[in-house]
């Protein structure tokens, strides 16, 4: 089948699902509307698989023209190449699993059909983002996923207890995303001004030929563009300084956290930077900045996760930390490695979130791990899959996370051994807090209420089936990009596959030596196994528990309070903005503008009152005004036609 037909089918499927559910979903029974949503994404996944088998070279499909100016066009055109197909596979594949999970998880919810509408809409926007062939379509999808994120985080806005805080969290997410979006818009304008086009392939070609003035290695223009793009990425992918929305976004339902804030939306920033690799390669300064910010984010978030007690918050900080790791990879120029980690992270983070959703569901909506414990006997499938996810994220040898992290570490070690040490510290912290989470939740004695104990149950098949699928992927996902150490023919399959995308194939990477690769692998494996043993000894044998809030001191207090980051932002940015807004309302709006407008309106009123007096009811006065009018008409005629000589 032709590529454009497949493309149109792919894009219209989630959109149609969203429209059907949105317009008619209220009348359907819950099973029907859930199935419509899931099947729409499922078929989209099949279409992407079809494209995956068919496309070996980048194909550009131009649908129609959007904007036409002198000198440039912006078209609704889509670039189907290896990178976009790979991202689409992740989106639709994990999307289908999460839709399936939601059918069970949200079954008690009133707004069931709304949920699936928003989810399908999100899939549509995300597909636009990754399939677009220019920055305009990318921006369109970028904004679309921002809106869907807002709608989904604040989904339970009418909840009597938490409704307001849900809405505030949604607003925070949206505003912080917006700050990043300003960066994307600036970058797009600068690109348009310099290259007169927004198409990826045309910009790449122009840079390759070196024909544009003002563009050279580390020139101010390119650094400006790339830093603006990176600002957008920090907004979407939750890096310092725009990361505080992600933990708050856990106020949304768990499938939302799994899909949007683990697997897909937050990886949009990583995707965008990978797409713009030709720009970033010309700006080593921007790449260095990315490297340091990524590392700082990774450390800070890992530190904050150490003493969090909400199961979803720990996973949220873990997401921020892993995103930091991906940004480190981007900063080193290892774009395909970053995409590899995006893939494996999508597998195990979605697994962990869905597993936590299963736990929350089984614990009657309890999210505090201090009230859990000993769940491995009550929820065996959830327990096993959660364990696999934890091991994967901690880098347990031979699981998927191990391979992807190892690639990043390898590149970093080749670059700068000191930074390698810093990242290893962050990885150690990751292992520590993840194992803490696992052991406190599933081992030990049950610490919840009697009501919860009596109701605790394993989740139904619609919820555990996605968990199992994701667990398998988390285990074997590393096979996608095995290092050349283990096999010779299929090594680095993903890297080679992705190198077909524009610009990526041109980047050279130094090949690490066998000895250093083995050494790094050994160190990483040793670290993860050591932390596993420590965790077992500490939490299971010794039975130590999470401290209650008033017992926290020193670094534990800082960690539990997330380094007071939100409070600092509040004082520096939020309060002044509120004051300015209040000032504008009370002083300028109420005292100046509103009376001014009213005065203007009353002017019309007064004028009308005066003109009213012309109607005297007296014929003689009417004739008088008529005479006056005729005089003026004739005078006007005279002035225009009289000759002045």
């Amino acid at each position, binding site marked *: 089948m032709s590529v454009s037909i497949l493309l149109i089918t792919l894009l219209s499927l989630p959109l149609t699902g969203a429209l059907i559910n949105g317009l008619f979903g209220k009348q359907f029974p819950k099973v029907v509307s859930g199935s419509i949503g899931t099947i729409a994404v499922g078929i989209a996944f099949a279409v992407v698989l079809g494209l995956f088998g068919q496309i070996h070279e980048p194909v550009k499909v131009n649908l129609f023209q959007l904007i036409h100016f002198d000198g440039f066009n912006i078209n609704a055109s889509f670039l189907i190449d290896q990178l976009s197909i790979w991202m689409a596979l992740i989106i639709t594949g994990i999307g289908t699993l999460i839709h399936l999970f939601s059918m069970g998880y949200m079954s008690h919810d009133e707004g069931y059909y709304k949920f699936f509408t928003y989810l399908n809409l999100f899939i549509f926007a995300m597909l636009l983002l990754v399939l677009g062939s220019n920055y305009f379509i990318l921006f369109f999808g970028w904004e679309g996923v921002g809106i869907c994120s807002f709608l989904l985080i604040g989904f339970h806005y009418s909840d009597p207890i938490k409704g307001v805080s849900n809405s505030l969290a949604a607003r925070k997410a949206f505003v912080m995303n917006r700050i990043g979006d300003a960066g994307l818009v600036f970058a797009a304008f600068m690109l348009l001004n310099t290259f007169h086009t927004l198409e990826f392939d045309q910009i790449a070609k122009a840079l390759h030929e070196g024909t544009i003035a003002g563009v050279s290695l580390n020139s101010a223009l390119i650094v400006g563009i790339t830093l603006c793009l990176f600002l957008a990425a920090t907004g979407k992918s939750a890096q310092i300084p725009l990361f505080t929305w992600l933990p708050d976004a856990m106020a949304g339902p768990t499938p939302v956290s799994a899909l949007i804030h683990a697997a897909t939306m937050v990886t949009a920033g990583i995707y965008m930077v990978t797409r713009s690799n030709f720009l970033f390669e010309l700006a080593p300064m921007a790449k260095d900045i990315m490297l340091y910010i990524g590392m700082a984010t990774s450390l800070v978030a890992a530190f904050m996760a150490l003493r969090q007690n909400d199961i979803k918050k720990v996973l949220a900080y873990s997401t921020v930390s892993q995103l930091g790791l991906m940004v480190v990879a981007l900063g080193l120029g290892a774009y395909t490695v970053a995409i590899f980690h995006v893939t494996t992270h999508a597998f195990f983070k979605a697994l962990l979130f869905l597993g936590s959703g299963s736990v929350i569901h089984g614990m009657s909506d309890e999210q505090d791990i201090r009230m859990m414990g000993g769940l491995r006997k009550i929820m065996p499938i959830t327990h096993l899959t959660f364990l696999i996810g934890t091991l994967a994220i901690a880098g347990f040898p031979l699981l998927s996370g191990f391979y992807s992290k190892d690639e990043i570490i390898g590149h970093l070690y080749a670059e700068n051994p000191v930074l390698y040490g810093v990242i290893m510290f962050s990885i150690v912290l990751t292992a520590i807090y993840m194992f803490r989470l696992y052991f406190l939740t599933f081992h030990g004695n049950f610490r919840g209420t009697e009501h919860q104990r009596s109701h605790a149950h394993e989740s139904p098949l619609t919820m555990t089936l996605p968990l199992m699928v994701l667990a398998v992927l988390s285990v074997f996902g590393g096979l996608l990009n095995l290092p050349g150490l283990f096999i010779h023919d299929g090594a680095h399959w993903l890297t080679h596959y992705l190198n077909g995308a524009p610009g990526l194939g041109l980047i050279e990477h130094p090949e690490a030596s066998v000895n250093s690769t083995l050494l790094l692998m050994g160190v990483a494996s040793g670290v993860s196994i050591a932390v596993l043993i420590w965790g077992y000894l500490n939490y299971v044998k010794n039975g130590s528990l999470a401290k209650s809030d008033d017992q926290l001191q020193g670094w534990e207090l800082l960690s539990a309070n997330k380094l007071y980051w939100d409070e600092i932002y509040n004082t520096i940015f939020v309060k002044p903005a509120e004051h300015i807004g209040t000032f504008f309302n009370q002083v300028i709006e109420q005292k100046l503008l509103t009376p001014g407008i009213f005065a203007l309106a009353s002017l019309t009123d007064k004028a009308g009152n005066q003109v009213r007096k012309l109607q005297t*009811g*007296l*014929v*003689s006065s009417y004739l008088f005004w008529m005479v006056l009018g005729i005089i003026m008409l004739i005078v006007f005629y005279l002035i225009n036609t009289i000759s002045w000589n």
Partner: protein
Amino acid sequence: MQASTVNIDFFVILATLLFVIGAFGVMIRRNMIVLLMCIELMLNSVNLLLVAFSTYYGNADAQIFVFFIVVVAAAEATVGLSILILAYRHLRSIDVSIFNKLKG
């Protein structure tokens, strides 16, 4: 008599003057009947001008037009005066400034 050498301009000015006097009368007089008469005066000034042009240009249509103006003026005066009588019966005065019910 020998033919008159009066120019048509004379009649233009004369008609204008009569018209202005009629307008002046409408603006000034408060007596309803005199008001109606001043309107007749204005109509007549127009008649005069029309006949002058008809003579100077040899066109008979203008005089027919005058004829019909007279017809209409007659009908209008009739109806106007009967309305006046009706109004007098109610308001007991012919002062125009009392008829101001349309005042807005």
